[in-house]
């Protein structure tokens, strides 16, 4: 069957009302689920899976892909409006989205999030179509030493999200890395800071830590000083982003999309590190660098481009090699199998029509995301008008239900409360929370890959320099560390010069 035949067959499978309806419903369900804190895109995809049993394979898979894509965007809505990321992937969106909402520009931030998400989604889908085979084979070459150097490089993004003090960012990261060590040791199975409690053996639940760190401190801060929030109703402001603003952020969106594509194609990394890396790169290169973290539209665009750029790319190893790139694609692979399909290289030969139907469906999903997202923004904007004295208790109750629902665990609710106090302490002492979260995500990956590499080599560090991929990441890390030190020295000099001028 020729390429054109496959393409036409694929088109005929998608160009029907059932497929469009499945995509539309999927995106809508995903956006709503993503917008509810604690109801992650993963949970929404898992809950939708049983509904696909009765559908045609392509219709069912498109429904799940719609939920996935909608869920990733939906997470940005509460991240911007109530500083509670709906999904871990939208943690980076909080950094500038929420300050924009506080300035009365929530509508603008949401609009930019939608535009950036749709652009990144489209780029990611095109990358999937064009580079599926090539990128997946590149990622297959990664072993523990390559992953270790990649994680080490990824940790340098902490510098980009440390705000005014690199040392406080480093301290925050240390705390995140230390908390990530809680649980059973993955190689020897011995206890580390579990205090004999079975609940701690699996480590601290990521969602509980995430919500505790980002949502609860705001509630505690309002309890500490309710007057500070008097009259601070966050207006939506201009409800749509202007094209000139989109054009200004376009470079960051495209760069973020490609970061998402590359990291998404590597199994196991996921959308959150991609969003933070994209955000950090945008901050590093932006002329408005100083405004990042205080409500910079480009920050929202970069973070959303980073996390949505992953959505299409995670399907590259799934379709080309049959390897799920993350938890959600692991659920989607189940849907393929239920319908008697085996993702992998042979699928491109045996079921090429389905592959092309999926490609076309994914492109259409970007358009659906734009329209459903627009409606969702206007629906959820009313959250901004809710009095804070009612909104904050509602958020607290929502967090309790949401965190419990992840593992059916009251213990996780306790972890969320405890992390809320840690987050409040960090807020009060101006310690940035983002490095904590990045370190908490990357810490276990860094340690596990390091130890696996050492096991492979009989504890010889030479394995960490074994090939071009490791050297590539070592070079990138060295360049970034050099740039951080140089920027730090420059900032100190400028600070001193300013102080001297003030004293004079």
């Amino acid at each position, binding site marked *: 069957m020729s390429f054109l035949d496959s393409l036409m067959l694929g088109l005929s499978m998608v160009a029907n009302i059932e497929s469009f309806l499945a995509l539309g419903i999927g995106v809508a369900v995903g956006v709503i689920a993503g917008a509810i804190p604690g109801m992650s895109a993963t949970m929404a995809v898992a809950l939708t899976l049983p509904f696909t049993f009765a559908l045609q394979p392509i219709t069912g898979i498109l429904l799940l892909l719609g939920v996935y894509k909608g869920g990733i965007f939906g997470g940005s809505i509460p991240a911007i409006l109530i500083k509670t990321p709906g999904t871990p992937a939208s943690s980076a969106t909080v950094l500038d989205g929420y300050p924009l909402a506080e300035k009365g520009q929530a509508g603008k931030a949401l609009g930019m999030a939608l535009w950036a998400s749709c652009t990144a989604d489209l780029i990611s889908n095109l990358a999937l179509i064009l580079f599926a085979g090539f990128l997946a084979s590149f990622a297959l070459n990664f072993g523990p030493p390559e992953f270790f150097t990649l994680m080490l490089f990824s940790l340098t993004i902490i510098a980009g999200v440390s705000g005014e003090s690199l040392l406080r960012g480093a301290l925050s990261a*240390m705390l995140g890395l*230390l908390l990530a060590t809680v649980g059973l040791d993955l190689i020897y199975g011995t206890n580390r800071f*579990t205090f004999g409690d079975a609940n701690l053996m699996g480590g601290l639940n990521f969602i509980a830590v995430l919500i505790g760190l980002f949502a609860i401190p705001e509630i505690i801060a309002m309890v500490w000083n309710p007057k500070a929030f008097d009259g601070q109703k966050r207006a939506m402001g201009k409800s749509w982003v202007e094209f000139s603003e989109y054009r200004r952020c376009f470079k960051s969106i495209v760069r973020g999309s490609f970061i998402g594509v590359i990291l998404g194609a590597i199994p196991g990394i996921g959308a959150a590190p991609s969003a933070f890396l994209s955000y950090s790169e945008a901050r590093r290169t932006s002329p408005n660098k100083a405004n990042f973290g205080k409500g910079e539209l480009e920050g929202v665009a970069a973070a959303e481009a980073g996390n949505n750029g992953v959505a299409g790319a995670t399907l590259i190893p799934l379709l080309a090699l049959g390897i799920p790139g993350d938890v959600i694609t692991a659920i989607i692979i189940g849907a393929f199998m239920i319908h008697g399909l085996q993702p992998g290289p042979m699928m491109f030969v045996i079921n090429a029509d389905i592959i092309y139907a999926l490609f076309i469906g994914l492109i259409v999903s970007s358009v659906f995301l734009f329209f459903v997202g627009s409606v969702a923004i206007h629906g959820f904007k009313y959250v901004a008008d809710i009095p804070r*004295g*009612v909104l904050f208790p509602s958020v607290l109750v929502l967090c309790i239900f949401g965190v419990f629902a992840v593992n059916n665990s009251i213990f996780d609710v306790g972890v969320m409360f405890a992390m809320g106090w840690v987050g409040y302490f960090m807020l009060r002492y101006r310690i940035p929370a983002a490095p904590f979260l990045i370190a908490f995500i990357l810490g276990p990956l860094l340690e596990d890959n390091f130890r696996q590499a*050492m096991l492979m080599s009989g504890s010889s560090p030479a394995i960490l320099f074994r090939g071009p991929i490791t050297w590539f990441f070592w070079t990138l890390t060295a360049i970034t560390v050099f740039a951080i030190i140089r920027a730090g020295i420059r900032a100190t000099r400028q600070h001193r010069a300013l102080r001297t001028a003030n004293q004079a």
Partner: protein
Amino acid sequence: MHDRTIQLQLGIGAIIAAAFLLLVAIPTWVSSPSNVPNIILSPLFWPWVLAGLTAITGLAMVLTSIREPRPAEPAISEIDDKPRAWGRLASIAAVMVVAMVLMPRIGMVWTAMLVFVATAYLVRTSHPKTALVSAVVIPLVLYAFFAHVAGVAIPQGDFVRLP
């Protein structure tokens, strides 16, 4: 509180935390098998590295704080009614502890209602009637969704059970 004071306090805190980790926490609460061939592979290695790095970070913070001059403007703005603010802070902490105790006993929905009312009171809501209605409606709606749509086994407690 001034920025310099914060930096100094954080630095000292980090050094104390690192010392506690190295001397007490890691030897007591991290176990390692006796047959580990190399220290690099031991479960103790990573916590040690992190404790060391925390100490270095703390030391750097103390040194930078000493070099910083005292600025005129405080970094953390103080509030007028401090004793009451501390009282509210203690109250929200108590609400969280009580919620953890009540959740398995009276159920998540009723606990959430009480948490809602207590939090609304502590944040001095200007819409008490709306808050009271929301305190009843929101937990019930969330229960209906999570229990009946998402299939989550929400704790029901020992007294009043919901359908």
